[in-house]
């Protein structure tokens, strides 16, 4: 599996007085098994970009290749794209509608026309993958669950379609710290268990640094920066000029670097920072 986007451009309401160029000539690619983090200001075009990847929006111009097959030439069936690419919208718990959790998770697989046995298996697997207990939640109404649980049920609804690429639009938006941590560790788990390509949008730079193999920075519909988290977060001033930031820990170690003579740092995560600071202190004491 791989994704390649070439010169994608998209305008909302073209020709109208309120037309908005939401995507402006974007190209990038994601290799098999990678987690790609996307950051960018609100309104920069992240959600619009994601909706192109499973055919919900048709590009104004440009192509998207999934596994070297073009999905934007109008020949590919939408069902086939959606089988491969699972998209979880922002606040996905607002799409829950069935009487029970199990039925809601089964909605996607049912639409794929699978038989009852296969659907049941997928529902059980998906609920397990998102870290919920099938016996406990399957017969409950999705509306009596907690916020974090609802969101996981909604994500399970997409995972049950067995996508080869899983896209999550701001999966942690509006969650309390506990639920946030649960969803992040769930994202890690899903990637470990399924090994699929994952794309996620977040405003939490710490999560981006911890999870991503590759980071895309979107600004005003264009890719402003692209690279490994280390490469991207090295551009602290540039990110800040776009109203974005680096992970808090990077700000701390960079301040330390400024205030000491011979401490240099490349740390992105708390662990790395702790190691570097310990090494520095040991060196000083020697």
């Amino acid at each position, binding site marked *: 599996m791989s994704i390649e986007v070439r010169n994608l451009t998209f305008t909302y309401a073209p020709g109208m007085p309120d037309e908005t160029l939401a995507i402006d000539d974007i190209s990038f690619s994601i290799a098999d098994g990678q987690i790609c983090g996307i950051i960018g200001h609100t309104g920069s075009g992240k959600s619009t970009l994601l909706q192109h990847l499973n055919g919900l929006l048709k590009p104004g111009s440009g192509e998207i290749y999934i596994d070297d097959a073009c999905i934007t030439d109008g020949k590919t069936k939408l069902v086939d794209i959606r089988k491969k690419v699972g998209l979880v*919208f922002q606040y996905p718990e607002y799409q829950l509608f069935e009487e029970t959790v199990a039925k809601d998770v089964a909605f996607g697989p049912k*639409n*794929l026309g699978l038989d009852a046995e296969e659907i049941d298996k997928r529902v059980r697997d998906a609920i397990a993958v998102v870290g919920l207990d099938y016996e406990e939640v399957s017969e409950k109404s999705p509306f009596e669950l907690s916020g974090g649980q609802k969101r996981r049920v909604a994500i399970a609804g997409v995972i049950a379609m067995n996508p080869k690429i899983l896209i999550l639009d701001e999966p942690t938006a509006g969650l309390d710290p506990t639920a946030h941590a649960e969803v992040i560790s769930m994202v890690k788990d899903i990637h470990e268990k399924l090994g699929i390509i994952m794309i996620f949008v977040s405003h939490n730079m710490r999560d981006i640094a911890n999870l991503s193999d590759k980071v895309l920075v979107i600004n005003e519909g264009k890719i402003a920066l692209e690279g490994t988290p280390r490469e991207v977060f090295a551009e602290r001033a540039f990110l800040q000029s776009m109203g974005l930031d680096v992970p808090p820990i990077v700000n701390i170690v960079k301040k330390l670097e400024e205030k000491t003579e011979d401490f240099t740092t490349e740390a992105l995560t708390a662990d790395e920072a702790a190691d570097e600071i310990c090494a520095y202190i040991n060196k000083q004491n020697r």
Partner: protein
Amino acid sequence: MIRDITLGQYYPGKSVIHKLDARTKIIGTIAFIVELFIVNNFWGFLIAAGAMFAVIGVSRVPLKFIFRGLTAVFVIILFTFVINLFMVDGRVLWHWWILTITYEGLRRALFMAVRLVLLIIGSSILTLCTKPIELTDGLEKLLKPLQKVGVPSHEIALMMTIALRFIPTLMEETDKIIKAQQARGADFESGSIIQRAKNLIPILIPLFISSFRIAQELALAMEARCYNGGSGRTRMNEIHFKKKDMVAAVVLAVFLGVVIASRWI
């Protein structure tokens, strides 16, 4: 597509139409609508359409923006047209199997379609050129005299504002939910009518829940700002009839006179 419904939207501008007193515009719109039902021949519609496009020209709202509102109700217009086309008896123009088109049917169908189009465009001009808040203030003042006989004018006006204010919000919400269910493989475009109706459940239930959530949040926000009904409430901007409004009233009266006269053309 669902965002194309412009009914209830405001298009900011500085034209004379925008600056008229909301009451003038409300009365004008009601007069226009009534007049569409007085008209009994195509000349009347021609005059009405001419007047309407003149108002649109003055208002500087782009035509494209106005017509976009029509595409959304196209199905309703088409439905009315077809029903009228085949259901009226009279001189036969064309006949095939159980379908018959008569001269009277064709005339009636065209009549209805034109009337609907003018009705929709005409009333969307009101909301396109009037801020929702002015619209309700105007409505409330117009209904004030009825308060004496127990009509809750403030409450009616408030309900209308809220409804108008939330049309775009609910459209957006609907759009999002449709996309989210499509991402889960839902198909809203094929199948029998019953199947299609059933397919709407995954949209309608989340939409209902969202509406209740939005309503609750709004009620809380209003209470937090000490809203307790219309009595004793004052306004930041009082509305007044101005010279423009007098001119508009005269123009309107002339227009109505001409349209009524057109019945005898």
